[in-house]
C-alpha cells in the first residue's frame, strides 16, 4: 500500500494521521460495482458509533497503521480541508500548509505528496545546519 510505505519511510520525522471522513461510495448513495464485487458494502453511517466501526475496518483492511482520527458526523474537518472523497495534505512544523493535494480521486497523488515531504524535511535539515 503506497501510503503505508510512505508512512513507514518518514514516520520518525513526520506525524502521520489518517482522518476518516464520510463514505465516498456508500451502498445507499453512490455504490460502485467494484466494491460490490469485493463485498465492500457499507451504508452511510447516521450515527458516530457506526462511523467508528467502518473507520476501524478501513484502517485494518487497507492497511494503514498510523493513528486514525474520526471526523464528526457534521463532516466539519473534511469540509475545512475540501477532503471529500479523499485528499492529501502536508502541514509544516509551524502549522502552515506546505502541500495541498488535489481533490480525489482525480488528483490524488501520493508521489507528489512524498516529494513534498522530502522537500520539507530537506528544508528543515538545511535550516538546522545553518543555525549551528
Amino acid at each position, binding site marked *: 500500500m503506497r501510503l503505508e510505505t510512505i508512512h513507514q519511510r518518514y514516520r520518525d520525522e513526520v506525524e502521520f494521521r489518517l482522518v476518516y*471522513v464520510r463514505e465516498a461510495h456508500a451502498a445507499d448513495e453512490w455504490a460502485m460495482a467494484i466494491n460490490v464485487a469485493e463485498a465492500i458494502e457499507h451504508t452511510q453511517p447516521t450515527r458516530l458509533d457506526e462511523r467508528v466501526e*467502518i473507520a476501524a475496518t478501513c484502517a485494518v483492511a487497507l492497511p494503514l497503521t498510523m493513528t486514525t482520527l474520526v471526523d464528526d458526523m457534521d463532516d466539519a474537518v473534511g469540509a*475545512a480541508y475540501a477532503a*471529500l472523497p479523499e485528499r492529501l495534505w502536508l502541514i509544516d512544523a509551524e*502549522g502552515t500548509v506546505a502541500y495541498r493535494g488535489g481533490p480525489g480521486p482525480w488528483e490524488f497523488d501520493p508521489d507528489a505528496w512524498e516529494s513534498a*515531504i522530502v522537500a520539507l524535511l530537506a528544508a528543515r535539515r538545511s535550516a538546522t545546519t545553518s543555525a549551528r
Partner: protein
Amino acid sequence: MPFARPDLDTAPDSVFESLDTTRDALRAVYAMQDRADAAAPQVGDRAPDFALPTLLPDRQLGTIQRLADLRGRPVALIFGSYT
C-alpha cells in the same frame, strides 16, 4: 498517479457507466468539489485547526487530538474512507 477527471461535455456515456454514475450526477459532484476546493486553504496559509477523537485498537474512540498539539513536527494528513 492522478488521472484526468472525465470531461462532462465530451466523454462518452460509457465513461460515466464505468463509474456507476451519470453525466448529470457527476456534474453535481464536480460543482460540489470545486466549491469546496475554492474555499480550502492554499499553500502558505495557516492550516485549519481541528480536534478529533483517535480510534483505538478495540474499535472505540480515545482521546481528542488537536492538530495544534502536533506543532513542532510536520504533519502529513490522509483524508479518506473505506469505499
